[in-house]
């Protein structure tokens, strides 16, 4: 082999991968067969997949998850910036918020919001206006506050990590140009922190889609509650739980794709590698068996 001839060589054979694939497929077959023979009526699962109650529950799940996550991201950014503040009062308030809402069960938080009238029977400004808490605190509002405020505490830590990942030289350069601390954070630091913040936020949102099922405890008509309503009359418990699980799978899959494109958008200017492969190319690369990568 001399000169300019291209290399022709036998690639490394990965026999282990073929064995591994065979074992995995065999196990899968056993599992699927087992479930298909079990005492579960899959017809019912399918039949309810597109039932009005279930579909409307799915939309409510989607709505509350999006709104609660948006609230969480907003609170998280504010709390993270407060946490990194030089002002000890601001920083302590943020610390307490994160400590308290991460440290208590979200189910309890939901129930406390829903039963806020136990503490404050009326809400308003004394002498000006006042409302009955019970009529104000709808299941929707309780779910939004409970899930969103709890999420904000987790998001705060994610955003704080993102802020910490930005090189301090960026802040110095912005300060040297005369940008105020607020502008520096908003224009320079946060946009760069996004690259680190988005992947775990996608993770949080997917978690939120499923955690939102806890809102059934405050009578919010989300996906799980709609299934509970059906199976408590027809007693097809597992069948209906499978139905809603399928919907959760669909929702999480859709948002995983969205996350991929969002990540690509925010890696702009920093990494050149992400542009090369489209989403399908990525999937194909993950599935490829015989070739080395």
């Amino acid at each position, binding site marked *: 082999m001399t000169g300019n001839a291209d290399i022709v060589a036998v690639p490394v054979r990965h026999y282990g991968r073929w064995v591994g694939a065979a074992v995995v497929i065999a196990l899968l077959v056993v599992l699927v067969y087992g479930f298909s023979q079990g005492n579960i009526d899959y017809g019912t699962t399918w039949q309810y997949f597109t039932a009005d109650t279930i579909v409307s529950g799915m939309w409510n799940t989607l709505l509350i998850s999006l709104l609660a996550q948006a609230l969480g991201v907003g609170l998280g950014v504010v709390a993270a910036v407060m946490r990194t503040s030089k002002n000890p009062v601001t920083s302590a308030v943020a610390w307490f918020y994160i400590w308290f809402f991460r440290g208590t069960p979200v189910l309890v938080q939901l129930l406390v919001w829903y039963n806020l009238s136990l503490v404050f029977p009326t809400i308003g400004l004394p002498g000006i206006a006042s409302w009955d808490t019970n009529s104000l605190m709808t299941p929707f509002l309780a779910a939004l506050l409970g899930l969103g405020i709890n999420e904000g505490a987790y998001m705060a830590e994610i955003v704080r990590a993102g802020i910490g990942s930005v090189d301090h030289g960026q802040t*110095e350069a912005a*300060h040297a*140009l005369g940008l105020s601390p607020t502008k520096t954070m908003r224009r320079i630091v946060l946009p*760069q922190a996004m690259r680190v913040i988005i992947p775990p936020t996608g993770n949080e949102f997917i978690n939120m889609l499923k955690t939102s099922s806890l809102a059934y405890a405050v009578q919010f008509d989300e996906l799980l509650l709609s299934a509970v309503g059906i199976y408590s009359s027809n007693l097809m418990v597992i069948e209906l739980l499978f139905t809603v699980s399928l919907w959760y799978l669909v929702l999480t899959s859709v948002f995983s794709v969205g996350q991929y494109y969002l990540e690509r958008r925010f890696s*702009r200017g920093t990494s*050149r590698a992400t542009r090369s492969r489209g989403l399908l190319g990525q999937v194909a690369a993950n599935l490829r068996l015989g070739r080395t990568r």
Partner: protein
Amino acid sequence: MTGPMVEARGVRKYYGSLQVLRGIDLDVAEGEVMCLVGPSGSGKSTFLRCINHLERLDGGTLRVRGRLVGFEERKGKLYEMREREIASQRLDIGMVFQRFNLFPHMTALQNVMEAPVQVRREKTAAARKRALDLLERVGLADKCGAYPGMLSGGQQQRVAIARALAMEPKLMLFDEPTSALDPELVGEVLDVMRQLAESGMTMVVVTHEMGFAREVGDSMVFMDQGVVVESGSPKDVLSNPQHARTQAFLSKVL
């Protein structure tokens, strides 16, 4: 304007118990190009960063254009400035960093436009035109749409100089502007700095480029262990150093 552009008297700075600046006295006149040289750890970068209050001094006084930096004097008492006041004080002072510190999520043009638009509230179109002029001045008119990650080190540093000039500073600080560059890229940055010096800009340059200091500098200050050991015209300091420490340092770098 009368009086010096920068006036330092007894400037001291501590990091914990370590004293990095032990009383620096120096003046930089308007239009002067001063080169700060010395071994690493001598405090020259720290002193430079004190001039625009990226570091807070712990003792002495430092004035830029007659105004105390970072503090305000009222009835014989010193008051620390608020962040916003410090920010506005920095508008007259441009700074160029060793590692460029361009904003990686913005194009070269956006980097240069950022401060004029965000801080001085210039109209986008006007800021854009000036930014293009500045990029042309540093020889990068064709790179205005490029992100910093796509530019060479020398190009990035030239964008950084244009970015600092966009605020029309009266004083430019350079913190080892060529130390992070490949040798063949050093020249293009020094050329831009030479042009800037010729245009009359007041410059304080921390550097190891003795050739640049000799050719462009009006004065040279040699620092070691937090004090000014020797100062004078670059020719005198470089070819006829008086102090043993200066001699030892120069024998290693020349």
